[in-house]
């Protein structure tokens, strides 16, 4: 079954790298595996992980989402503007924020599906749009997140790392979606769109749903970031657009669609996050962090491409 081994090669490679990073990390920070460190780290990584999940979904359809950062900010803004104290208040605000980001994603998807515009330029134009909407919802940093929620999330809740739990739940949700017909159709549309259409798959519906799901996970990332920081900031999402692409690519998701696994994206996000943190411990100037990020990206993708490419002259 070399076929299956080949399919898991990149995941195994990422796992090995991650193990190396974790061991190094553990030596520099022995509290790595304590509940409080896990809570803190997972709170820190959650937005990037979920943003990368969203980006992965879009990339699986063969697209790319340049409006991810603004939509993340939008979700955050709607959440902090509407969040009231108490469980119902928070849940209502979450639902509203997610509804808005799902709608934003679905709007992107509808433009891609019906307008015949390439995803990259639809989402490029949409990035201006959603930035504007965010600024209307939340003109300056502020808003309100119940203090109890913030501390439970960041410091642990009866010893449970809520952010880690949230990531696990989100990924389980994806796993479920992945095994539905829609999940398979998503891969089919990404792998051969015309073929999928000719086989009776409603490719437009699949795309709109896919972008909608991406909106959902982007919104969750925004809410996570809001709870982590206890407030909203209309500009905070911007770096996530390119970072999420970097993570997805690191996880082996192809720009051409139809190829890649979510667990690889997860590993990519953890790897990139831990590596950056590691630099903070080693005392190397943080200026080198960007260089490291760029080099890791190039090396990882180049190794994968060169290892798997057809042997042409």
């Amino acid at each position, binding site marked *: 079954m070399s076929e299956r081994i080949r399919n898991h090669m990149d995941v195994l490679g990422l796992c090995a790298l991650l193990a190396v990073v974790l061991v190094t990390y553990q030596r520099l920070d022995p509290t790595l595996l304590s509940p409080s460190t896990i809570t803190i780290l997972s709170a820190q990584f959650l937005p990037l992980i979920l943003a990368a999940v969203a980006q992965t979904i879009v990339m699986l359809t063969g697209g790319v989402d340049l409006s991810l950062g603004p939509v993340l900010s939008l979700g955050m803004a709607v959440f902090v503007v509407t969040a009231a104290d108490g469980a119902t208040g928070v849940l209502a605000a979450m639902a509203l924020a997610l509804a808005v980001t799902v709608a934003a994603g679905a709007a992107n998807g509808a433009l891609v599906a019906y*307008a015949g*515009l390439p995803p990259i330029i639809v989402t490029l134009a949409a990035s201006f749009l959603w930035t504007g909407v*965010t600024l*209307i919802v939340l003109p300056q940093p502020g808003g309100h997140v119940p203090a109890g929620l913030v501390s439970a999330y960041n410091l642990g809740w009866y010893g449970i790392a809520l952010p880690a739990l949230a990531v696990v739940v989100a990924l389980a949700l994806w796993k479920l979606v992945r095994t539905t017909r829609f999940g398979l159709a998503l891969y089919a549309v990404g792998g051969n769109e*015309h073929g999928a259409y000719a086989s009776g798959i409603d490719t437009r519906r699949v795309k709109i749903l896919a972008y909608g799901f991406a909106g959902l996970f982007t919104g969750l990332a925004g809410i996570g970031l809001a709870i982590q920081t206890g407030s909203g900031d209309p500009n905070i999402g911007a770096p996530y657009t390119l970072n999420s692409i970097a993570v997805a690519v690191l996880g082996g998701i192809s720009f051409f669609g139809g190829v890649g696994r979510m667990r690889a994206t997860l590993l990519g996000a953890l790897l990139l996050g831990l590596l950056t943190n590691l630099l903070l411990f080693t005392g190397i100037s943080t200026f080198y962090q960007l*260089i490291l990020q*760029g*080099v890791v990206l*190039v090396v990882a993708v180049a190794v994968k491409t060169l290892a798997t490419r057809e042997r042409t002259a």
Partner: protein
Amino acid sequence: MSVAALRDNRAVWAFGVLGVTWLAAIAFANGFGTVSSVRYLVQTASFLGIVAIGQTLVVMMSGIDLSVSAVVALSAVVCAQVASGSGGAAGILVALAASVVVGLVNAAGLVWLRLPPMVMTLATGTVIAGALLIYTDGSPRSARIPLLDTLANGSVAGIPYATVLWLAIAAAGVWLLHLSRLGRYAFALGTSEPASRASGVPVPVTTLVMYAACALLAGVAGLVLLGFTGTSSLTMGSPYQLLSIASVVLGGTSILGGRGHLLGTVAGALLLTLLTALLAAWNLSEGLRQVTLGLLIIVLLLAYARERRTA
């Protein structure tokens, strides 16, 4: 050219939309008819326009350059830094050389490492941003270089030098992309890479030249900006990253490559600058302004930049 061919030519559309928008601006907004306003618009459009011409070269071969923003900053910062020690001429040369090197590195990554253009240029952009932080220790310098000062701020017969430079670059670009052999190769690559390889298109050379030219133009834009403001900063290129791509697309060039005309990008850059200026002239909140800009771009793309369905 027949009427049907004109209707199908999206670059012509871009100029049409630009003309209509401009007329509408003159009719319905204050001050857009004056000579000084026109002059200022074309001057400010030049910065974006120069970057966008470079971007067109790579988009046409189905690539994309996400490192242009970093190269704009790189060129300005390096020039300012070097000029303070070794004089303006050295600064300019070193800055342009550094830009070209970035372009060559990008192309090398695509050709020999087979990376997708988005990944490679994103990565070089990130690395440059980091390298600039280290190089300047976080605080880049300012510099007054007479040549750049004149280039950015001077004018001849009422036309800003920056605009003259832009148009000259556009003319060179038209030759490179539409008249020269290399341009044909770029179009071929943009349409189908396997067919191009099998037709003997020199893929490495074409890629190297086009990406180097793109980076060089981003570097030129950085220098003009340095001359315009007299200062360099690490983020001075960021507005040009997405706007240069938007200009290319609004100019009717297909983001998938192989279709469009470089002159359309000139219209695209002007159109974007004009729209931004129009929105600035209206007293809207920044949020509404962004929403309007986003919607306008989407509407324009829907009007004439739709891709043909392959089905």
